[in-house]
Structure formats: structure tokens, C-alpha cells
């Protein structure tokens, strides 16, 4: 029998498959039309979706609001940039960025997890600001100007290689990595460890009575979220060819939090939908009027007022009801969408 959590997670997977299908259609369309701007914009949206995913892991599952998740995104980006400028190897850059964020998130976690609630938000915010200022003033890291000159690398897959300058190819690679991170996060949350996290969010004081360490669970999810942010950040310089300290600023962290709230807190896929929507909205509205911040602010307020659970939180119960109706043994993540289609045509 599926419990509530498993059902909502499956509903998220349905939406993930929809997103994947839409992204593949976009890639095919982009390739057919020889487009590069929209594909690269989509790639950037997916990269920021990775950052939003890491915010949702903390906010939606352990209940900790991080206002400084861009710290790990930025560390990933800078380490990846530095690696690419020395050795132009994509996988090496990803590995180096992953390792660096793992270390940074462990240190950051040891500091931030001493407190909770609003103090956690403030400490994460503070840590990001401190590191951003240090980078902003370090000439070896390009200081306020950031670093340019990151080469367009060839991404090796055994005997094959795809250039990061190929819009369709790189879009698909980023899509695979971000969806992979989503899948990994979803898997972790379904393990007993994930259940401890959920319990933690519901009632932190009862968790120790059940024999689990609160601190250990919070620490583990913090480090994992840092890693997700770092790996997403590592993709940024490969796409844009530069890094700048603005990537670590509050604006980046804040946008990730807005994405999560827009998409739906605690839905994982909502973070990705929210980030994609936000990047695309900003690009379209920004070209249309210089008062784009007002428009986006209003949309955000409307969303909070009328869709408090976000876009995915709003649409997911509808999918959940259909999953419950289908005999649960037959439901597997990959078979969900035809089942939905069938039940939709039946009703």
C-alpha cells in the first residue's frame, strides 16, 4: 500500500516526466529551427532550477529556510571555472566543484546547524554575504569584475564528445544532470533517512524520542543540498564562459527561494518548474518593460495569496487522486503517465 508521502512523490514524478517531455520537445524544436538563444536560456533556467531544488530540499523537507544557498552555487561555479581554465575537462571540473562544495557545505553546516528557525536563515544569509565579499575583494579571483576566458569545452562520453557550445547538446546534458539530481533527491527522501527528515519537519522534539539524531539528519541534508547547489553552479561557467561575484549575492539566493515558493514548497519538482518559469518570465517581461520587477513582484504576491502551495502544490492533488484510483501495485514511476492518460480519458 502506498502512503500519503509516496503518493505525492509519485505525483511529482508524473510532473517531472511532463517537464522532461516538454524539454525534449523544446530541444527537438530548437534543433529543427537552428535556434540557439532560447535553448541556452532554457539551459540557464535548468541550472538555476538545480539551485532551487537545493533550497527546496532544506525548506520543504527539513523545514530550514536557507537565504544563502547561492554560496554553494557560487563556490561550484568558481571552482569549475578555475579548473576549466587550467585543464579544459568538463568531468574534472564537475568533480572538483562537487568536492569543494562538499567540504564547504560541511564547514557551513557545522556553523549553521547550531541554530534553527530564523537564526538559521540569518546565519546562512550571513555566511553567503561574507564569502561573496571576500571573493568580491580578491584580485586573484578577478575581484568585482569576475573571471572571463573560460573555454568552450568538449564534453567526453567515452568515444563521443559534445561541445558545450552546441546549444542542443549542452541543453540535453544539463537536462540529464538536473533531472538526475532530482531523481537522486527523490530517492533519498523515500529512504528511511528521508522519513526522519519529514518527521523532523513535523515535530522536531519527538524525533530524538524515536531514537534518531536530529543534528545528524539536519547536517546530512544540508551537505547534500550544498552538493546539489554546487554541481548546478559548476555548469554555469561552462554555459556562459564567465563567473562573477554576483552569482553568490543575495539576489541569486532570493530568486531561488522565490522559485521554490512559486513552484510549491516541499514538492521537489515544483522548485524546478518555479525556476524555469521565473527565468523565462524575467527574460520576456524584462524585454517588454523596464518595470519588470514590479510585474514579477505582483505575480509573486498573487501566487502567495491565491496559490499558497505553489503551482505544483495546486495541481498535484488532482494527479494524486488519479494515482490512488489506479491499483497501487501496478504504479511504477515510469508507467504512471500512460495510466494517467487512461484514467483521464475514462473520466
Amino acid at each position, binding site marked *: 500500500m502506498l502512503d500519503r508521502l509516496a503518493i505525492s512523490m509519485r505525483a511529482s514524478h508524473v510532473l517531472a516526466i511532463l517537464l522532461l517531455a516538454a524539454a525534449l520537445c523544446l530541444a527537438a524544436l530548437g534543433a529543427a529551427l537552428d535556434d540557439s538563444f532560447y535553448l541556452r536560456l532554457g539551459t540557464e533556467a535548468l541550472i538555476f532550477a538545480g539551485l532551487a531544488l537545493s533550497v527546496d530540499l532544506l525548506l520543504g523537507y527539513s523545514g530550514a529556510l536557507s537565504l544563502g544557498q547561492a554560496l554553494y552555487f557560487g563556490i561550484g561555479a568558481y571552482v569549475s571555472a578555475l579548473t576549466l581554465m587550467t585543464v579544459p575537462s568538463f568531468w574534472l571540473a564537475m568533480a572538483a566543484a562537487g568536492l569543494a562544495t562538499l567540504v564547504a557545505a560541511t564547514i557551513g553546516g557545522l556553523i549553521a546547524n547550531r541554530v534553527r528557525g530564523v537564526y538559521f536563515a540569518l546565519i546562512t544569509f550571513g555566511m553567503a554575504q561574507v564569502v561573496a565579499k571576500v571573493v*568580491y575583494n580578491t584580485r586573484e579571483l578577478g575581484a568585482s569584475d*569576475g573571471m*572571463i576566458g573560460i573555454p568552450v569545452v568538449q564534453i567526453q562520453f567515452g568515444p563521443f564528445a559534445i561541445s558545450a557550445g552546441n546549444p542542443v547538446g549542452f541543453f540535453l546534458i544539463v537536462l540529464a544532470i538536473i533531472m538526475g539530481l532530482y531523481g537522486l533527491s527523490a530517492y533519498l527522501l523515500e529512504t528511511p533517512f528521508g522519513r526522519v527528515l519529514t518527521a523532523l519537519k513535523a515535530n522536531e522534539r519527538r524525533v530524538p524520542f524515536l531514537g534518531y539524531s536530529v543534528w545528524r539528519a539536519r547536517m546530512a541534508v544540508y551537505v547534500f543540498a550544498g552538493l546539489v547547489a554546487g554541481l548546478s553552479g559548476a555548469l554555469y561557467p561552462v554555459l556562459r564562459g564567465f563567473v562573477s561575484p554576483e552569482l553568490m549575492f543575495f539576489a541569486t539566493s532570493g530568486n531561488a527561494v522565490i522559485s521554490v515558493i512559486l513552484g510549491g514548497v516541499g514538492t521537489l519538482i515544483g522548485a524546478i518548474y518555479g525556476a524555469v518559469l521565473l527565468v523565462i518570465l524575467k527574460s520576456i517581461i524584462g524585454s517588454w518593460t523596464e518595470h519588470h520587477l514590479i510585474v514579477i513582484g505582483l505575480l509573486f504576491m498573487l501566487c502567495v495569496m491565491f496559490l499558497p502551495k505553489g503551482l505544483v502544490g495546486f495541481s498535484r492533488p488532482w494527479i494524486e487522486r488519479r494515482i490512488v484510483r489506479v491499483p497501487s501495485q501496478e504504479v511504477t514511476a515510469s508507467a504512471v503517465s500512460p495510466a494517467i492518460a487512461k484514467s483521464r480519458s475514462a473520466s
Partner: protein
Amino acid sequence: MKPFGILAAASALLATTALQGAAFAQSGPIKVGVVTPLSGTYTPIGQQVRWGLELAAKDINAAGGIAGRQITLIFEDEEANPAVAVQKAEKLFQVEKVDFLTGTVNSGSTLAVAQLAERNNRLAATTVSFADSITGDKCSPNMFRVNARAEQQSVALAAWLEKEKPKSKVFYLGPDYEMGRSTVAAFKTNAEKSGAQSMGEVFAPLDSKDYTQYFGQIRAARPQVVYTSVAGNDTVRLLTQLQDFGMLSNLTVVGASGTVTSQNIGAIGAAAEGFATGVGYSTQIDTPANKKFVEAFRAANKADPDLYGADSYGLLFAYKASVEKADSTDTDKVRDALRGLTWKTPQGEKTIRAGDHQAMQPMYVVRVNKGKFDIVTSVPADKAIGPDACTRF
């Protein structure tokens, strides 16, 4: 180096797609993309860039356009963030197929957009960013700068100081962050070259409330001149505190061009009197061309032009001259035409140095007299330019 081979291959790939666009756009209006801050802290600068470009486009279009083609300006908000600037610039290059790009304000955006222009095989120019690296060690064959860089400002100021107070003893007080330290370092080099003696330097945190803690050090050094590159409200506190402690008598205060501006000069009051700085533009430049420009600018925008407005206005005339000289909007031909180009602007004649794409222009030293800036001297273009530090082309 290996990465450059891949880079070249990728830019060649991008170039082929870009060329199709360029060929398609050979008739019809010439599109100029403007990626500039229209929201956030730098909005006033973006506003001047916009006003300057709009006025220039109006003037050029009224006189028949560029080689008979009208100019269309397409604006995008860069939010003073390189990550946004690059995304918007890419949209202008690839979706709008602009022929030319300008408007970036912070140096990080300009550098990142320069690299993007290279990868898209288009040309771009900045009219605002003054970091030396843009036409120095990080110069790009696809980026031009028509405004004065930091070096030109300090050279002009140092030249004036040499004449006004030869072999003076100088103390430096900068804000403690990267830009503050580099402006102090740049002026120090130029001042020492022209015979000044450095008595010491101190860096105060940004947004300091109390500068008196440094006054003992300054007094002990017995300087005749204090150079500072603090800005905004920091200048207000520094200068008024210097005045309160009676340290302004027999002391000349000079500084970076952003230290005393129209925004804080009122708050500084009498303490600003005598402050001198090097700039590339002043509304007081006494030429018919400038008078006409200031008048037209005021009529159109109900505000005075500042250096950003003037430099942006001048840029489109450089682009017009180069396209007409090249008889094409093709990137390579226009680049060749821009190199070494001399054209007329309200600020006087400017010449783009072929070696680093930096515009050479006469520089002015302005000094506060009865609450407003007066031009005290000008430094000819070739004296203020400094060495060509670009090695890439």
C-alpha cells in the same frame, strides 16, 4: 594554448550563424542593442546612457541616418549584474540580430559581454566602465571604449598637481575594497612619476562613520595633498570631519571622479571647496558643439548631461563614421574602420587607439569653486592616455 583551438572552432561555428543574420540585415534599419541598468542602484547612469543614445539616434536619423539607413535602438535591462547582462546581450545578438551593442555599466558586465561579442562575432562598445583591464590585460578585439578609463583620470589629475604643487607630499586615503585600492594604486603610480612624494596610505572600511581615527596618521605625515577615492556619504563624513578638525587649511584635497558629485556636494557644503578631480566631460566645456549638445539634451530630457550621457551620445557618431567608411556593417570591416578613427564629439575630438581600442580624448581637471565645479585646466589627449597594455591584438 590548447583551449584557444577549441574556442576558435566554437566561435567559427557561431560566426557562420551570425553571418547569415548579418547578411539578412544588410537593408532596412541598423539595429543597435543597448544593455544597460534600467532598474536598481545604477539606474541614474543607465538613464544618462539612454538619453545620450536616444538624442544621438534622433540627430543622426534626422540627418539621413547611417549610409541612408535609420538607426533603431533596442533596450534591455541588465540590472547591473553580469549574469543578466550576458543573457540579454545574447538575446539581442541572436534573436534581434543587432549590428552593434553598447550600454554596459559595471566592468564585470562589460568584460563578460566582450567575450560574448567575440563568440558571436559582433562588435560592442562601452561608454561607462572605467576599469583599466577592459582595454588593458583583458582587452578584446570585439570591444571598444569611448569613455576615459581610470588611468586617464589619474594621469590628468597628476599632471595638474605637478603644475599646481610641484614635488608635493601626498597622502592617500581609500575605501577598503578592491576598486578603492586599485584607484589609489593607479594615482600613486602617476603622481610618483610626476615627482610627488608618497607620505603614506590608509584604507578605511566602506561606510565608515568616523574618519578622525586616521587623522593622527595624516597629521604626522605632514602632507600637502590628500588623495581620496571614497564615494557617496563617506565623502561627506570624511571632508566635513577634516574641516571640523581644522585640517583643510594648507591642504589640497584631490580625488577620483566619483568622490564629489552633484548628489553629495550639497551635503558636504563648504568642506568641498577646492576639491579637484580629473574628468572626461563637463557641461562647462566652452565649445559651440558642446553648447549645442547641452541645450538639446536639456530640451529633450529636462536634465543636464553628465559624462555618461556625453560619451554615449558621441559613440553613435563613431559607429556612423566607421560604417560609412567601411561601407558595410560587417564585423571585420567595421572593426578595421574603427581602429584609428578620429571623430568629433561635444567633448572635443576623440581618436580610437588601434592597439587597445581605447579612445584618446582631452581630459579636464575640475575644481569646486563656490559649490560647483569649474574647469581649471585641460590635458591634451596624447598626454593623458598612458601606455598601451593590450597584448592580444
